């Protein structure tokens, strides 16, 4: 009986720990595109949610500090292993997403847009 309880508590502990870095709680709708490819393993994930707020690895951030934070995360990783996932709500405007793209470029990240398969009309 005790073993089951311990396993249960451990599981809860790891779930909470994982969610601190996770961005699955953020609400955003991906834009559609006809051609998609599988994402590579990413060093960082940026979300611009439906309220146009920017998050880096699930933590709220501002445009001005984003490039610095990304540089720190990417470190000295070689080219090809500097993937940054960009999850932008499809209705977000250029005022919000262009500075983020610029910051990824400044930090030397490999930009990867997360999108959805375009449905046939």
């Amino acid at each position, binding site marked *: 009986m005790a073993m089951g309880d311990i396993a*249960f508590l451990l599981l809860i502990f790891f779930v909470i720990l994982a969610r601190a870095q996770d961005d699955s709680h953020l609400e955003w709708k991906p*834009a559609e*595109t006809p051609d998609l490819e*599988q*994402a590579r393993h990413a060093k960082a994930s940026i979300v611009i949610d439906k309220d146009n707020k920017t998050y880096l690895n699930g933590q709220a951030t501002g*445009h001005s500090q984003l490039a610095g934070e990304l540089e720190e995360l990417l470190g000295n990783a070689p080219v090809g292993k500097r993937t940054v996932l960009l999850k932008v709500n499809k209705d977000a405007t250029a005022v919000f997403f262009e500075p983020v*793209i610029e910051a990824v470029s*400044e930090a030397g990240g490999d930009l990867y*847009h997360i*999108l959805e398969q375009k449905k046939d009309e």
Partner: protein
Amino acid sequence: MKFKKAKLLIEPPHSAMSDIAFILIVFFLVCASVQPDRGRSQIIPKSEEKEEKKEQSENVEVKLSRTAAFVNGEPVSSAMFLPKMQALLSEKTKEADRVVVVKSKGDTPYHHWISITGMIEKAGGIITLQLEEEREVMTD
């Protein structure tokens, strides 16, 4: 007088409770973690070289507004955008000439931007963003 004996409730074994809870948690975790992980990579060169600014007039310039796209100042419909870009970039052999400068108005939605930049890349263009000066100040 005989009374009918009521059937006793059989309690499930307590040891199974934690197993049920464990399986339920795993089930909800799997349901919650279904997130999109497919998309498109994009190469955006660093925009630091000031010398290249002189040559920008030779590069194709795409302006984006909320619903429209302009190629070198000329409005182009979504259906005609890809053939237009292919025609413009097919003559350019040097990589530097294939740079396409993308300028977006502040109200350009992401779905429109991603569709247009996708077509530029499909036509063989290399995207460079040009941000408006005043926008860089107001981003935070």
